[in-house]
């Protein structure tokens, strides 16, 4: 039997999780963690070379290939960062060795759950995978067992489970809508079947189902006003987890939402899902932009920035059409790479300074030039300044939607500009001015951070034609 890459992206993390749970010693396990994520990433890339056949449970198409490769790549670089980050946490005694074993096993379980959510061809299976990813991250957020970490994990757990419960109700309703057409049994939950028959489903049921799915998975995407868990979970967990949450888990929830949006778009009698998504996206973007001004904790600040960008992405997908979808997809990719690079920098900065309070940091470009300038570059990228990738994608979002609804786009641009102001205000305190706090040299791995930033920089200047065609195909698929 030939090697099946689809099974590979699931089996490698699953096996690695078992192995890492059993093995002691931080050095060995952190390397194994890197190796496992690298293998998963390589397997995911091979999906582009040999495309396996989709079965009744697993599916591969142009849309999820992009997501899988992005997920596995960022999780690979994050595991490299995590190795040096966790090393430092053990040295200062913030994390006990037993917890490290647990942490690595959970990291792989999370990878498994996210990949499963992306390749699942069954809406029930996809739901199970997202629930699994949520529970894993809840455990990881609470891993420091401090007062704040527990509060964050509890809040995340409660809000996350309610979101997931609503999503399940939506999933059941989709099944109810599909049953009279497709017939009873598992077949009525399979994506590939649902998509071909969606035009004949009962539109009223689909509408209600989509509202539940939007609220449910929207909570996981971090859309305002359902975002309350996100800043806490990002701020209190280990920084590699903040990077994975922001860069990947939000995307996975978004992917689920996009799939259901495709389903609704195929049914002419159902409501258009676009306006709902556009509204939520705009609210998130503007709201989060204003929230950036009052932040005192560096990780919370970038968590709000994630809400803002998810708002922009959801806005772009909500507008729909090949161009806006292309822009949304590009923006999502760029945001994942940039935001995780920023969290890599922030993780090491917080370790050097021994705090996450912005007021206790200062003059980083003088004391730790590499980290400081890395952060400056990251913030310049995330704020959407040219010539970096996010400028490109934001420009595309704005230009592709302006002709259709100028007023909405003006609100979006307003949000982006407000966010830019907020980010630079804080960056000024952190990176420049009088050095404050400890100034020890960082024991850091810079490679992942600069690798991400280099890709973002490249994308701003030149996009390989193959990538453009690939994204265009996906954008067309999204409708």
């Amino acid at each position, binding site marked *: 039997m030939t090697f099946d890459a689809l099974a590979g992206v699931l089996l490698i993390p699953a096996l690695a999780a078992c192995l890492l749970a059993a093995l002691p010693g931080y050095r060995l396990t952190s390397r194994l963690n890197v190796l496992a994520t690298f293998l998963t990433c390589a397997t995911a890339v091979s999906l582009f070379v040999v495309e396996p056949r989709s079965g009744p449970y697993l599916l591969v198409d142009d849309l999820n290939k992009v997501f899988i490769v992005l997920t596995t790549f960022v999780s690979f670089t994050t595991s490299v960062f995590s190795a040096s980050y966790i090393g430092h946490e053990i040295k200062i005694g913030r994390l006990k060795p037993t917890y490290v074993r647990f942490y690595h096993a959970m990291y792989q379980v999370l990878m498994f759950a996210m990949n499963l959510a992306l390749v699942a061809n069954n809406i029930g299976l996809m*739901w199970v995978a997202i629930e699994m990813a949520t529970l894993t991250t809840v455990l990881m957020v609470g891993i420091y067992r401090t007062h704040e970490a527990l509060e964050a994990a509890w809040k995340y757990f409660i809000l996350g489970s309610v979101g997931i419960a609503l999503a399940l*109700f939506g999933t059941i309703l989709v099944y109810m809508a599909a049953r009279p057409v497709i017939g*009873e049994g598992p077949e009525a939950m399979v994506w590939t079947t649902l998509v071909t028959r969606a035009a004949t489903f009962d539109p009223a049921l689909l509408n209600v189902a989509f509202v539940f799915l939007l609220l449910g998975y929207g909570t996981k995407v971090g859309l305002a006003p359902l975002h309350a868990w996100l800043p806490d979970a990002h701020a209190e967990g280990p920084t590699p987890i903040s990077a994975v949450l922001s860069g990947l888990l939000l995307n996975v929830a978004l992917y689920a939402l996009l799939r259901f949006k495709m389903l609704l778009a195929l049914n002419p009698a159902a409501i258009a899902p676009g306006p709902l998504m556009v509204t939520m996206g705009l609210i998130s973007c503007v709201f989060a932009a204003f929230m950036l001004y009052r932040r005192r904790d560096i990780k919370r600040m970038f968590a709000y920035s994630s809400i803002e960008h998810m708002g922009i992405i959801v806005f772009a997908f909500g507008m729909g059409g090949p161009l806006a979808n292309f822009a949304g997809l590009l923006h999502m990719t760029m945001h994942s790479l940039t935001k995780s690079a920023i969290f890599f920098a922030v993780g090491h900065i917080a370790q050097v300074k021994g705090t996450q309070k912005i007021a206790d940091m200062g003059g980083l470009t003088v004391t730790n030039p590499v980290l400081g300038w890395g952060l400056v570059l990251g913030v310049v990228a995330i704020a959407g300044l040219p010539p970096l990738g996010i400028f490109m994608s934001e420009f595309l979002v704005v230009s592709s939607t302006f002709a259709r609804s100028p007023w909405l786009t003006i609100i979006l641009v307003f949000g982006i500009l407000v966010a830019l102001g907020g980010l630079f205000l804080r960056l000024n305190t952190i990176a420049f001015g009088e050095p404050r706090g400890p100034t020890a040299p960082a024991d850091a791995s810079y490679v992942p951070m600069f690798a991400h930033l280099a890709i973002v920089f490249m994308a701003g200047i030149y996009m390989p034609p193959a990538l453009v065609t690939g994204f265009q195909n996906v954008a067309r698929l999204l409708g």
Partner: protein
Amino acid sequence: MRGLSFDIAHMLAGSLVLVSFMQLYQDRLYALLNIYALHALILAMSVAWQAFVQDAPHLYLTAVIALVFKAIVIPTALHKIIVKLGIHREIETVVGVGPAMLLGMGLVALSMVVMLRVTAKADPLAREDLAFALSVVLLGLLMMVTRRNAVSQVIGFMSLENGLVLAATGAKGMPLVVEISVAFSVLIAFIVIGIFLFRIRERFDTVDVQALDRFRGERR
């Protein structure tokens, strides 16, 4: 026979909503836990009845899971946790009983209006079940919002999950994969919650969620 089987299913699903209401005004943890066990018991009966009516033997398994885990194991374990933590005193509700009941009635009315309207073409049994299930889900949500105590929030969440199971079994022929995973996820959720409760106790000597709210990165 069609009429009778419909009536029984209707009665069981309706009782589930009724018991959800009963949960809303319980102000002692033990009582709340007992009512939750009753909730799970009725759910098990309802699922078993659906299994019989739909002639779907795999649903009996779901009924057994509901009976064993939700009506027996989890309440017993939570009971022990409550004793261990020494928190069998009164629960402080954020909203009074009266307003909570009124809100609950509003939510039930809302779910009837929404679900009965959109499912006009579905068969009557599934239709009523979905409307009741949504009511149970919303009432569970309401309970989570109106309670401060971590244990009662968890109970609210579990009764919400019961509503989901009711919906899943009402949807005729929904595959087994999902039902088992639903039950399984509740179990995992419970483990997570259990760990959390112990950790919370360890750190702050209280399970009052308000105590958790004291600190947040912003203030100071």
